[in-house]
């Protein structure tokens, strides 16, 4: 009798390995918002505040707690510019790229700051000190060009002013 050719059992792909993260902190955030409807954005903001980013490994934990798919949670994290999946540099400098600031020289300023830091918009300096990011209007258009350093809004920004502030917070 010929041996039956059995189909190979279906195997789920290996679960991806994510770097470890503080699951207890994430659990605390999830508990805090458990009773709020539409709580995913507040949860992601709080996780990012606590951990500096939303660790990819936390997606499953969040999805289970909210009874939503991982794809959905991942989709939300990647839709919004604010959420980061990897830690930023020690300082975050956002330069406004929108029209009012363009009218006051933000393109030139951006080029100067990129040269100063040795990295482009969207990148972090090699020593991990500063992440440089674009932002589209800070509502400070009456004092363009505008920027934001570690959450603090700056107005009538010049390269010299930024250099001074970056030195003060200990760039490099």
């Amino acid at each position: 009798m010929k041996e039956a050719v059995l189909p190979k059992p279906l195997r789920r792909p290996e679960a991806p390995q994510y770097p470890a993260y503080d699951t207890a902190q994430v659990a605390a955030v999830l508990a805090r918002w458990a009773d709020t409807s539409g709580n995913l954005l507040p949860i992601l903001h709080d996780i990012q505040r606590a951990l500096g980013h939303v660790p990819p490994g936390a997606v499953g934990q969040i999805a289970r707690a909210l009874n939503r798919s991982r794809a959905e949670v991942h989709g939300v994290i990647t839709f919004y510019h604010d959420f980061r999946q990897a830690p930023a540099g020690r300082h975050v400098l956002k330069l406004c790229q929108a029209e009012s600031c363009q009218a006051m020289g933000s393109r030139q300023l951006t080029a100067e700051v990129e040269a100063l830091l040795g990295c482009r918009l969207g990148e972090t300096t090699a020593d991990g000190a500063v992440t440089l990011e674009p932002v589209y209007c800070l509502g400070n258009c009456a004092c363009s060009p505008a920027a934001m350093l570690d959450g603090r809004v700056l107005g009538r920004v010049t390269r010299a002013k930024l250099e001074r502030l970056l030195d003060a917070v200990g760039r490099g």
Partner: protein
Amino acid sequence: MVKVCVPRDSSALSLGADEVAAAIAVEAVRRGAAVRVVRTSSRGLFWLEPLVEVETPAGRIGFGPVDAADVPGLFAAGFLGGGEHALGVGPVAEIPFLKRQERLTFARAGVTEPTSLVDYEAHGGLRGLRRALSMAPAAVVEEVVASGLRGRGGAAFPTGIKWRTVAAAEAPRKYVAVNADEGDSGTYSDRMVMEGDPFVLLEGMAIAGYATGASHGYVYVRSEYPHAIAALEEALAVLRAAGWYGADIQGSGFGFDAEVRVGAGAYICGEETAMLESIEGRRGMVRFKPPLPAIKGLFGMPTVVNNVVSLASVPVILDRGARFYADFGLGSSRGTLPIQLAGNVRRAGLVEKAFGVTLRELVEEYGGGTRSGRPLRALQVGGPLGAYFDSSLLDLPLDYEALARHRGMVGHGGIVVFDDTVDMAAQARYAMEFCAVESCGKCTPCRIGSTRAQELIDRILRGEDAPANHAQLLKLCDVMESASLCALGGMAPWPVLSALRYFPGDFGLPPATEAARVV
């Protein structure tokens, strides 16, 4: 005790207002001067920020722009008595930029302490809500209809009519959702309301709730506005403690409460249905309409969605009456509009005026021309989806219809000024780049068209078969305008087409015919 006011508005803070306030306190102690530093907000005279105001028997005397290093000199000059100093601007209320305005919605901006309810009530606050609570809800709706107020968020839909729809909808629960996403470049009036007079927004919201039968509100604030978020939270706590928010407001039997929700850096979440998706915890994808949010909005319930300034204009309408408000403005543009001057302008700031003021008055008389001192070359009116105009259109009045006739829009009331160093092809390209970055991705013309348009502009600029690529760009803009689901894709062509119309030379194209320029 001399009262010295230093703004806590975020633009003033961005220029060192905290350092100035601290320096004043330190210097006062050093000199043994009896000074009370009060943190007010901004008047919206941003070229003078940080603007320090000293209360004197002759009214508030201003000094600005003040740097912390100027403070000892100000004391030496006797500024506490309103003394002469190089930074002195005299009585603040007499500054022409401010004096010639018609401040209804912004009556308290920079005058009161933002989260002092005592101050708020002393300056006319809560009168609108008190009167509303004494009326039938339907009468409140009709008062807003009669005022002619149209949404200040951009789409200019009559606010009262929207409220009527929500009021008529039967549902177990209704919501008021405030759109505080203020993503348009060149605009900051929502921010000024929230930071400088948060009670007026919350009062307007409660009135909207009462009028439409909504019990719960959300304020969706963009994450770029941390100070606004903090001020709103503080103001909410104050109102709850005083019985103006929460169950059974002032024994009226009407209950209303609200919470602040923080956006996460997505321009499209200013579109009302994307905002609702975001509040519900999803990607900010635009919904198909119908159903209108007024029928089926947040969590599937009837929802009033209004802009910050729209709602902040409601208390004065209820307080002074629809007629009073409608007497400002003209035609179907009623009331006042807070116009925000931005970009390359000498006196950047907030101008609240009745509709009908011309662009020239705004940019030249209020704004004082360009900050660089170079000739003005272009204006963008109404945010990143608004048209660019050249200086030949400065005599246009700012009202919904006049701008629409010139293929432009009032939008949220922002005007960005550019001098003659601007490259209009770069501006046009940026409009499409922005659209590509911020597109929610739901429909093809916007998601793909915005990138194709950048490529076409690049080809025109490289001189590659410019006439054909120009024609192709116009065709693409037409497709985007007519086939996009929302105004991001639908209006991103406006800045491009207007730049082509008024500044063809910047693209290396021949001058537009007179017929193409004149609409």
